[in-house]
Structures are given as structure tokens and as C-alpha cells.
């Protein structure tokens, strides 16, 4: 589904990664590992097309991603560090616009999606009165609302409590079982009932240095 060939990225005169190759298919999980500042977030943003300072090739369905932008964006859900939730709006209003901005009609599914993240009854509360964890859940509820073949999640477990983490893990496992491709960064030891491919940015860089 997604393939990277010989990715190279340099930031502020420091090579973050080089000669990075991997491919990710439906039903697979890929975890990007690395110490702080090793370029995990940068890599995800490069794959999403939000960052263009890289060399190498990225393919989507075997086509260069530059030619597949619309199909790619149609099928990818990205969760960044920032929750992308406007605090003056309620969860319902936030999610409604999120769906609309992607051209997906929400069909009244929003309350159910919120309920799946333990936010039943919070539809109309303004987001600024919610806690960081609750806002995070609103942000995560977006995954349930749009059809996507691939989820790219940057630290999805941040600010979640134990139960939230467990619920999210179940949801991720279900997504992968249904044939979705999952790419994520996390410092939390993943407990998914499926094989996990690990891409270690620290190691990839060392190997390239030694070769």
C-alpha cells in the first residue's frame, strides 16, 4: 500500500535518517521507534505530505505519491501532536466540520463515535471545558467517522488514562484485522494481537553510517 524507497532527511545540518526503505500493507502494523529528536514525527509528516524536505521516493499503490495525492488523502487518516480540535466549538461541531472538510457526510454517526470513546453525553459541551484527555478522545473519535485504509498516528496514547489506552488498543487491533494499515509512533509498549514491524530510526542511521 505505502512504500518508501531510500528516504533521506536532513534537518539543521543533522541527518535524521538515510537510505530508509520499508513497505506497509493492509493488515500490518508498523511502529516507528527512535529516541527523542530522531525524526519520528518528521518521518510521519513526510509520509503525509506535510513536509517536503526529503529525498527519495514514496509510493502509494505502486505509484509515486505526488501523482496519487487525492487517492492518498482520501484513504489516510493522520493524527498529529496537536488535537486539531477548536476549543470554542463543541465536539459535535468540531467533528461535523472535520467530516465535511473531507467531503464525508457524517450521517448522524458522531454521537456513536463519541460514545465509543466514552464521551456519550458530551456532544454539546464546549471543548474548552474538557480535560486534555477528553479532548484527545474527541480527536481520536475522528478515526471512526471517515473511511480510511491507513491510519498514521503520532503518539496516539498521549494523555489517555489506562482504560482509554486499552480501548484504543482494541480499536487499533480491530482496524488491522479488517485489513487496515497502521503506522504509529509511541513510547507505550504496544499490546496488539497482531505482528508488529518495527522501524528503528536510531539503528537505521547507525547502520548507514557504518556501511
Amino acid at each position, binding site marked *: 500500500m505505502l512504500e518508501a524507497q531510500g528516504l533521506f532527511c536532513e534537518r539543521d545540518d543533522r541527518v535524521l535518517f538515510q537510505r530508509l526503505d520499508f513497505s506497509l500493507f493492509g493488515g500490518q502494523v508498523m511502529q516507528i521507534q527512535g529516541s527523542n529528536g530522531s525524526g519520528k514525527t518528521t518521518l510521519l509528516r513526510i509520509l*503525509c*505530505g*506535510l*513536509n*517536503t*524536505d526529503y529525498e527519495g521516493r514514496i509510493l502509494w499503490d505502486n505509484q509515486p505519491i505526488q501523482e496519487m495525492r*487525492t487517492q492518498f*488523502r*482520501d484513504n*489516510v487518516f*493522520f493524527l*498529529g*501532536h*496537536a*488535537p*486539531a*480540535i*477548536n*476549543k*470554542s*466549538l463543541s465536539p459535535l*461541531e468540531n467533528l*461535523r*466540520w*472535520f*467530516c*465535511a*472538510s*473531507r*467531503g*464525508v*457526510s*457524517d*450521517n448522524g*454517526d458522531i454521537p456513536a463515535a463519541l460514545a465509543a470513546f466514552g464521551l456519550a453525553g458530551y456532544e454539546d459541551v*464546549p471543548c474548552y471545558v474538557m480535560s486534555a484527555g477528553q479532548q484527545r478522545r474527541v480527536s481520536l473519535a475522528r478515526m*471512526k*467517522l*471517515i*473511511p480510511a485504509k491507513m491510519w498514521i498516528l503520532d503518539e496516539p496514547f498521549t494523555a489517555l488514562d489506562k482504560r482509554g489506552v486499552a480501548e484504543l488498543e482494541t480499536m487499533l487491533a480491530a482496524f488491522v484485522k*479488517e485489513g*487496515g494499515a497502521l503506522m504509529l509512533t509511541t513510547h507505550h509498549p504496544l499490546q496488539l494481537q497482531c505482528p508488529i514491524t518495527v522501524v528503528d530510526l536510531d539503528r537505521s542511521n547507525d547502520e548507514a553510517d557504518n556501511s
Partner: protein
Amino acid sequence: MMNNPRMGLGSVIVATVRRELLLAFRSPGDVINPLMFFIIAVTLFPLGGGADSEFLSGIASGVIWVTTLLAIMFSMESLFRADYEDGSLEQLLMSPQPLYFLLLAKVLSHWLVACLPILILAPFFAAMLALPAAGILPLILGLLAGTPTLCLLGAIGMALTVGLSRSGLLLAVLILPLYIPVLVFGTGMVSAALGSLPYTGLLALMGAMLVLAICLSPLAIAAALRISVN
């Protein structure tokens, strides 16, 4: 996996405008502050330059135009700042929908929120500045055609500087030179009307500038936003 029906581009645009209007309704400062700036700044001119009505009528259209232009420039901060900070901008850039129309929808809503109130009050303030009655209509028509252009140009500047922590005066340095043609033709329309000359040609020119801005500036805004989130 959910398979919900797709929305047409029209409903996407309507939803975007609705969200922006809702946001303006929730934080009324976005509507009131540009308006208050306009009112106060216009009031400063008679106080600073003298209340002689002959002097005032000479500068009235210029004062209205310049303060409108500055009000628009200062209001730009609310166009992308919040979206940039909470990450919504990234999501917008990753939307499969054409960014061109999403951005046009955002700028259109900004115009509705920040400019329309000024436009409604402008004739009253023009009259307060002793602008002769013949000048009121061309002033309003000019503002109607010119302020959307100003919003689009301002959005380019804001998109370029949204990633910078302090952008207020930089924004002014970047976009005020680009505002000059609109100012020149806008005030020119009023002078023409006061000199009993036809001003429709100038209005057509301002319309042409608006069309050009609608065609090109969303491309520049999109490019600038991609640079800013990088």
C-alpha cells in the same frame, strides 16, 4: 469501516462557511474588534486634522479607505492563527477536497465577519466626514468590490507569516504595498463621481482585480500554508 455517502463540493463549502460563522459567533471579538478599530481610527482624523468640513470632505474617502484597509489587515490574524495552533490547518491541508475552494470559503467567511459590518457603517462615517452625497454610492460600490480583494491578498500575507511567533508588523510590511492599487482605484472612484465623471470604468477595473485575486490568490495561500506547516 463506515461507508457514508460523499458530499458535493458545494456542501463542503457551505459547511466551512458555517463553521467559520459559528466561530465568529462564539468569539464576537473577531467581528467587533475590526469594526471598533475602524470607528475609532476614523474618529481620530477630525480630531487630529481639524473639524473644518471642507478639509474633511477632501480627505473623507481616503480616510474611510485607509482605515478599512488597516482594519482588514489587523483582522487577518484570526483567519489562520487558531487553526495553525490547534492543528486544524494540517488536517485542512490533508483533506482530499480541493484546497482551493476550502480556502476561498474561509476567506469568504472572513469577509462576511470582518468586512461586512464595516461596509454597513461606512456610509454613516463618510457622511460624518462631510463626504458629499454624490460620493457615497461609489464609495460603497468600491468597498464592495475592493474589500474581498484585500482579504484575499491579506490571506496570502497571513499564510506566509502564520508560522512565525511575531508577525503583526511584518504582515503590514508585506501586504500594504500590495494594497495600493485597490486604494488608488477605490478613492479614485469617489473623486471621479465628485467631479461628475463616470466611475463605472474604475469599478470594472476593481472587479477585474477581484476576479484575478479569486483566481490566483488561493494558489498562493495554499503554497504559503504548506510552507508554514512544514
